[in-house]
């Protein structure tokens, strides 16, 4: 995904210190940044705080941004490193995560029209909404078993359709490391699904 002409202009203005222009960039990129933080951290409150922090960091480092690179991937790289650092600092908490899991389309505190996912809003059928919620809860629960870097790799692969090269570049890994991380992470997740299934029986 490339940076649009409008965004290029906002970037130039923001680099000159125009905060309003940067605000437009925040609006344009808030969804990918927030979704990444949410997948990484597991709950809405922390995801919101981390997204804000990622944008503040980006603003401070705008002079280091290479305009040849898509702004989106630069922004996502800042956000993933920030989330990885946060998770590493709270090693103990991420192994025993039992935070409330937010659900797109669910009725959490910040749920406005904007927070409703297209999928949920297109299917007013309450059963589908419940199924969607459960699936979402399951996914967030699953992701917590992964180490911070594996979690980032899986998130970038599934929600951002990143290639191995993109993941490697974003997380400062080699391509073969990305391969083995994805392999290991998927096996771990599949095993977890199996165990959870067994426990329910």
């Amino acid at each position, binding site marked *: 995904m490339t940076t649009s002409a409008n965004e290029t202009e906002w970037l130039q203005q923001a680099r000159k210190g125009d*905060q309003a222009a*940067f*605000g437009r960039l*925040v*609006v344009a990129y*808030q*969804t*990918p*940044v*927030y*979704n990444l933080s*949410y997948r990484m951290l597991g709950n*809405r409150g922390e*995801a*919101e705080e981390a*997204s*804000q922090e990622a*944008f*503040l960091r980006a*603003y401070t480092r705008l002079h280091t941004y290479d305009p040849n690179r898509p702004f989106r991937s630069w922004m996502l790289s800042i956000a993933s490193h920030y989330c990885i650092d946060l998770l590493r600092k709270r090693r103990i908490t991420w192994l025993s995560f039992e935070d409330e899991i*937010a659900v*797109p389309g669910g009725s959490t505190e*910040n749920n*406005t029209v*904007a*927070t*409703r*996912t*297209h*999928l949920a809003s297109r299917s007013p059928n309450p059963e589908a909404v419940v199924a969607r919620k459960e*699936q*979402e809860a*399951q*996914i967030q629960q699953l992701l917590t078993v992964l180490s911070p870097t594996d979690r980032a790799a*899986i998130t970038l*692969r*599934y*929600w951002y359709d990143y290639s*191995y090269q993109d993941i490697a570049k974003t997380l400062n890994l080699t391509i073969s490391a990305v*391969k083995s991380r*994805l*392999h290991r992470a*998927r*096996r771990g*997740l*599949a*095993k977890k*699904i*199996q165990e959870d299934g067994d426990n329910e029986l």
Partner: protein
Amino acid sequence: MNCKQANKMLSLRLDDRLDSEEVALLENHLAGCSACQAEWHSLQALDSLLSSAPMVQPPVRMRVQVMARLNRRDQARRAIIGGTTLTLGTVALALLALAPAILNLLNAPGIVPALVSGGPGTAVQLVAFAGTMGRTLWVLAEQFVLPLVSLGMCSLVMALVLNRLWMRAVRRLQ
């Protein structure tokens, strides 16, 4: 192909990173190995679960909050720069006021000759030099500690007061 080799290829297969030859080899192995087949099915199930999840949407207040934090940070930065400038300025003025006294002290007998002749030649010279310096410091302390302390305190209080006023002005401007 053995199970270990096949297993390594499963994740690559999900990402479409195998060529047709490798795919054929893998399919061949899966057809004859129920363990690897089970693993493949569980990975496929995981894959479709994760692929089905949409992006979650951020709260609407994101932009407003980022802007507010940017403003607060700028404000704090300006206040710190202003405060530091004022403090350093005050201290510089205080030192300027003290300058005549310090220069006077340098003119006192004994110090300059000691500085000039007290080279690193002999131990005796070094000891003499250190002695002179010590005595100088003592004189300095005796003569100037009281005025220095009071002057320092005065400039500190002044800097703090100015700092407060400055921060208040900055906040009002915002």
